[in-house]
C-alpha cells in the first residue's frame, strides 16, 4: 500500500513522524533503528540562544502517562545548524525544526536563520509549551498572538513549510486553529501536552520543581483525538495528530478522524525502536481493516446522523 503523504508541499514517505522533545536531534535513536524508516522527525525545540531549561526534578511518571517540565533546554539554533543538521542532511527523512521564542519578532528572526538551510524541510512553531514562563502556552492561549507569531515566521521562512503546534489548554481549540491559518500556517500539529501536576504526600512537595508540568502519554489520547476531530472540521489545512500514540491502531485512529500524519512522542520512551516499525504496522492494519488506500481511509469516520 502506498503510504506516501503530501502535507501542503511537505512530502513524507509515510505518515509517521516523531514529536519534538522526545527524539532529540534524531541521532540519539540511530543505534535502535533506521531514521529513514520514518516519514519525518521533529527535532527538539530550538531557540535563538542556548537555554539551560528548568531545574530538577523535571519528570514524573503518572498512570498511563508522564509529566515533564524540561523548559526547552537546547544548545541554540547555531549549534543545531552546525552540529546536528550536517549529520541529518544525508538522510532520506523530512527534518522538521521546532521553534521556540519569547515574542513574534524573535520567532521571525529564528525562522530567518533556518530559511536558507536546505536540510530543514519544515518549521514547526511552538506556541504551546506549558513549561516556560515567558511566551510558551501564553501565545497558544491567545488567538491574536498565534496569528502574529505565525505571520512573523511565515514572512521569514523563505518558502519553507510552516506548521503550527497547538495547545489543548484552551476553551476552544478551533479558534486557535483558525488564527494560525489566518497567520499563514501550511499545516497544524496538535496537541502539545496538557497542563498538569503531581505532588508527594511523604515529602509534602511537588514532584516537579517547576510545579506545573506537561502531561503526555496514552492518558491524553482521548483529548488529542477530540481536538483533531474538531480542528479538521474547522480549517482547510492538513492536520498532524499527536497525543498518546503507542500502537498502529492508535495512529490509525487519528488518520480515521482526519489527520494526514501523526507524531509519536512519549512512546519513544517505552522502547527506543518503537517509531521505526510503526509505518509498517499501520500498513498491515490498513489492509486488515480492508482500507483501499491510506487516502481513502483518512477522514472516513462514520458519525451518527
Amino acid at each position, binding site marked *: 500500500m502506498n503510504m506516501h503523504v503530501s502535507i501542503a508541499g511537505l512530502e513524507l514517505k509515510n505518515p509517521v513522524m516523531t514529536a519534538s522533545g522526545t527524539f*532529540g536531534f534524531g541521532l*540519539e535513536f540511530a543505534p535502535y533503528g*533506521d531514521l529513514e524508516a520514518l516519514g519525518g522527525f521533529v527535532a*527538539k525545540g530550538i531557540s535563538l540562544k542556548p537555554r*539551560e531549561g528548568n531545574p530538577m526534578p523535571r*519528570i514524573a511518571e503518572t498512570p*498511563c502517562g*508522564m509529566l515533564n517540565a524540561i523548559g526547552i533546554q537546547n544548545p541554540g539554533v547555531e549549534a543545531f545548524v552546525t552540529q546536528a543538521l550536517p549529520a541529518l542532511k544525508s538522510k532520506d527523512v523530512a527534518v522538521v525544526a521546532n521553534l521556540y521564542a519569547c515574542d513574534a519578532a524573535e520567532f521571525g528572526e529564528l525562522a530567518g536563520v533556518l530559511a536558507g538551510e536546505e536540510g530543514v524541510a519544515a518549521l514547526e512553531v511552538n506556541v504551546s509549551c506549558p513549561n516556560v514562563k515567558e511566551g510558551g502556552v501564553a501565545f497558544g492561549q491567545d488567538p491574536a498572538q498565534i496569528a502574529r507569531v505565525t505571520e512573523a515566521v511565515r514572512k521569514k521562512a523563505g518558502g519553507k513549510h510552516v506548521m503550527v503546534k497547538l495547545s489543548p489548554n484552551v476553551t476552544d481549540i478551533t479558534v486557535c486553529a483558525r488564527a494560525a491559518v489566518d497567520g499563514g500556517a501550511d499545516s497544524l500539529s496538535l496537541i502539545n501536552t496538557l497542563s498538569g501536576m503531581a505532588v508527594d504526600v511523604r515529602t509534602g512537595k511537588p514532584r516537579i520543581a517547576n510545579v506545573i508540568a506537561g502531561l503526555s502519554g496514552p492518558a491524553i489520547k482521548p483529548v488529542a483525538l477530540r481536538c483533531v476531530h474538531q480542528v479538521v472540521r474547522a480549517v482547510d489545512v492538513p492536520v498532524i495528530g499527536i497525543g498518546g500514540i503507542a500502537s498502529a491502531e492508535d495512529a490509525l485512529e487519528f488518520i480515521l478522524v482526519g489527520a494526514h500524519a501523526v507524531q509519536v512522542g512519549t512512546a519513544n520512551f517505552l*522502547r527506543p525502536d518503537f517509531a521505526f516499525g510503526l509505518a509498517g504496522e499501520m500498513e498491515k492494519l490498513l489492509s486488515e481493516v480492508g482500507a483501499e488506500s491510506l487516502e481513502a481511509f483518512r477522514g472516513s469516520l462514520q458519525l451518527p446522523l
Partner: protein
Amino acid sequence: MSLRNCRDVKVLQVSPVGRSETPDEFFELILEYPDWDGWKPGQFVMVRPVSWELDMLWARPFSISSAGDGRLTLFIQKVGRGTGRLARIAPGDMVTLWGPLGNSFAVEKDTPTLLLAGGIGIAPFRGYVERHPSPKNVQLFLAHRLPLACYPYDYLCGHVQGQCILEEKPEDLDGIIDAMGGLIKEYAQKKGLVLACGPTPFMRTVQRFAREFGARAQVSLENRMACGVGACLGCVTRDGEGHHVQVCTKGPVFWADKVEL
C-alpha cells in the same frame, strides 16, 4: 554501531538476597544476555517488563552488575512501584531491554583503586572487580544499613580486599564519614583512584574529601530517567561549568570535580 541494542529478552531467574532478614528488599534479576559486543563496568541498562503494557510507561535504569555466559545480572533494591513489580516478575516473562548505556568507571591496572559503595551502590562494583586486570590493587569499602547478607559483599571479598561499616544508628554516620575521609586521604597520597557509587549524600561526602585531599575520584550518579538515550533531558545534572548535562549519556560516571551534587 549495532542496530540490535533494544530487544525483548527472557527473565531467567529472580532471586531474593538476604531474604530471611529483609524479605524481598534486595533481589537479583537475571536476564538472557543479548550478546552485546561488549560492556564496561559502570554502564547501565533500561529494563521494562512487557507485562506493564501502558500502565507504567518508563523502563527502569539499573547498573550492570555482571554479564556473560548468556546471563545478565542486575542487583536491585525494592524502592518504589516499578522495582516492587519487578521483584514479582517470574522466570520466563519477557522484558524489553536496551543497552549497554552510558560511560564506565576508569580502570587503571597498576593504580591503587578504592571502591566506595553506599548500600545498593555496590551493584556496579561486582562487574568491576570481576573484570579488573589486577584485583590485588583494588580495595572495597561498603557502608550499609541493612544486614551484610543483603549485599554481594562476601562474593566481592573473594576477589578484592574489603572493609565494611554498618550504620545502625545515626551516631554511626560519624564513624563512616571518618573512615571514608581516612581512606580517600590515603589514596590521594598514593596517587590512587577513588570510585564511588551510592546515595547523593554519600557522593557529596566523597566529593568533599576528594576536593580536600586532592584525590582523583569518580562518582556514578543515579537520576530518574525516561529514555536512557539522551533525548528526554529528564535526568540532567549540572556539570563543572554549571551547564545541564544528561546523566544517561554524559555519565552516569563523572569525575567528582566536574559535577555539581
